[in-house]
């Protein structure tokens, strides 16, 4: 396989599995910016080692293994006083997250439906919160509410969304 074909094949696989890989990393890394940095490193390593990948096997499992080691590397580099889950718990969560990664598609479908059931104010708040560079404080400033009020509202929205998602997944037929 020449380099171009190899690159195209890699692109297809990575595009397909990128959401799962990021979700896996995000489970193990508290900070969003750090998680995105780890994802970039993982992409780089996956490409460098793509010759090691056996076509027909599980790309996501292979990616999770590399992502896990990148997370460990990231933890080693982190500040000594940075808050992180204990190593044994990271390992446990990594195994479970990898095991459950196949649920991501139905989870996403359910989330899409559940978001439409939110009120306009809640959707607006959610939209603002996930703009680039936004945080609770900037959202609070933008909507003229206190930071704690925004925080409480988001907590409520997360709870509603998670309950909604779970009910859709667990209902007969699951999420559409």
């Amino acid at each position, binding site marked *: 396989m020449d380099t*171009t074909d190899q*690159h195209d094949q*890699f*692109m297809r696989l*990575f*595009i397909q599995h*990128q*959401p799962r890989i*990021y*979700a896996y990393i*995000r*489970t193990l890394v*508290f*900070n*969003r*910016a750090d*998680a*995105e940095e780890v*994802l*970039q*490193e993982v*992409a*780089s390593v996956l*490409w*460098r080692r793509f010759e090691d990948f056996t076509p027909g096997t599980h790309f996501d499992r292979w990616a999770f293994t590399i992502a896990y080691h990148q997370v460990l590397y990231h933890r080693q580099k982190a500040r000594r006083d940075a*808050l992180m*889950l*204990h190593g044994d*718990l990271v390992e*446990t*969560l990594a195994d*479970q*997250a990898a095991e*459950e990664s196949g649920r*991501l598609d139905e*989870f*996403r*479908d359910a*989330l*899409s439906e559940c*978001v439409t059931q939110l009120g306009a104010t809640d*959707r607006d708040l*959610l*939209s603002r*919160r*996930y*703009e*680039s*560079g936004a*945080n609770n404080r900037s959202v609070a400033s933008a909507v003229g509410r206190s930071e704690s009020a925004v*925080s409480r509202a*988001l*907590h409520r929205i*997360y*709870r509603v*969304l*998670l*309950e909604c*998602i*779970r009910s859709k997944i667990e209902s007969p037929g699951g999420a559409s």
Partner: protein
Amino acid sequence: MNSRLLDHCCAITDGTLTAEALADLESILRANEAARRDYIDFMRLQSLLERNEIANATLAPMPITPTRRSRRSRVRSVWYAAALAAVLTLALTVWFILPRENTTTPSDTDSPTPHSFALLSTCSNDAVFNIDANPVASLNPGDALTPSPIRLQAGSAQVMFNSTTVVDLRGPCTFQPLGPNHARLTAGSASVYVPRRARGFILETALGVRIVDLGTAFEVTQRPDGKMAVVVTEGKIRLESDHDRFDPLVLTSPQRAVVTTDGLIQSQHSPIAAAEHIRLWNTAFDGPVSEFRSDDTVALIPESIVTDLAGKTLAVVPPTVGRIARFDREKGSLRVDRPLDAYSLVFHPASGSVENQVKLTAVVEFDRPIVGLIVSPQAIKSSNAWFASSDSFIRNGSSSLEDDADQIIVSDDHRTLTLHLTARTGADHLRVLTESASTDSPQPHSESNQSEGSTQGDVR
């Protein structure tokens, strides 16, 4: 979901998790698999929201505001802008983050497959492009760039490489992507920022001189007369000559060098002596300049190197030898296409107030002749586009020099400014124009600085 667990999860995303809460979270997660599943679901929810992975139109469209940001945030802002605008495909998202190895050799352009390894990430409204001499009516943000020379006739544009290296172009200039981390600048000016992961970016310039990134940001100008000037704004670079005209030379921030048409290093300068208050022209001026306040120090900010006026006529106060005492007029003009260097000079007293007038005397020497001064806020603002970013003017803080309170004295050889400045609430701001660094780079330095009622200090 357990309320305590949800509180802890929210604290993670809010950045408010405490050590005690972390310990409690760990005990909950260790206790049972269901809690771990809840935690994984919560983080999965975050991952989908953060990457806008939910179906179209379920959330309100995210606003995209193409603003000039600090260099460190630019890569990320480009990423998000691209992703959120939904202009680019998922493939392009991957394309952004996928460095390809062994692709920074000059043979990149020989590839039979016209791979795109860079894209236009942003451009100003007035940007005008030509590619291969053919006018391009619609080169838009998000467009992939092939290894064809791009001539940016006017305006500004930003190119982002596969490797995540970011190059800001200022028209007029000619630029050619050669590989995922490799380009050529044959005319004009560019600012290059190379993230850590893209270290090794190579910029070819005319006459066989190569700039190799060693973890850095740098400014480069390729002049029509063939000379090339480079200043390192962050980290370090290595200059190499294809023809072995000089040994590889490592420059560290904020060193600069000028390479002649013969491909020889003409001059190399040590850091400009203005200490921590110096901010190179492409940094956010509003922040550092506005924040800089001192009763006994003048901020001296190099704004650009080798600026061509490109047909513009610039009204200036001519560098009349002796005291300049009238600032209510802008007399004289500079020859068009004359290469110049520009420096902003700011006195913004920290203790100034309506009641408290602060006086300062400072002497600033340049090793090139001063060819003009721009002194009124209006004229400084109107000349920003030629010498610095458009927002380098100190908004609402800059005051006119006053005929009865401020004096500028130019030495006989036009190389020394003696400033007697007085300010209360605003900042005295002037722009100093010198002969260009391309002929023999100016290196301003100050000698003394005394302010009334304060300790004597250095401008440095």
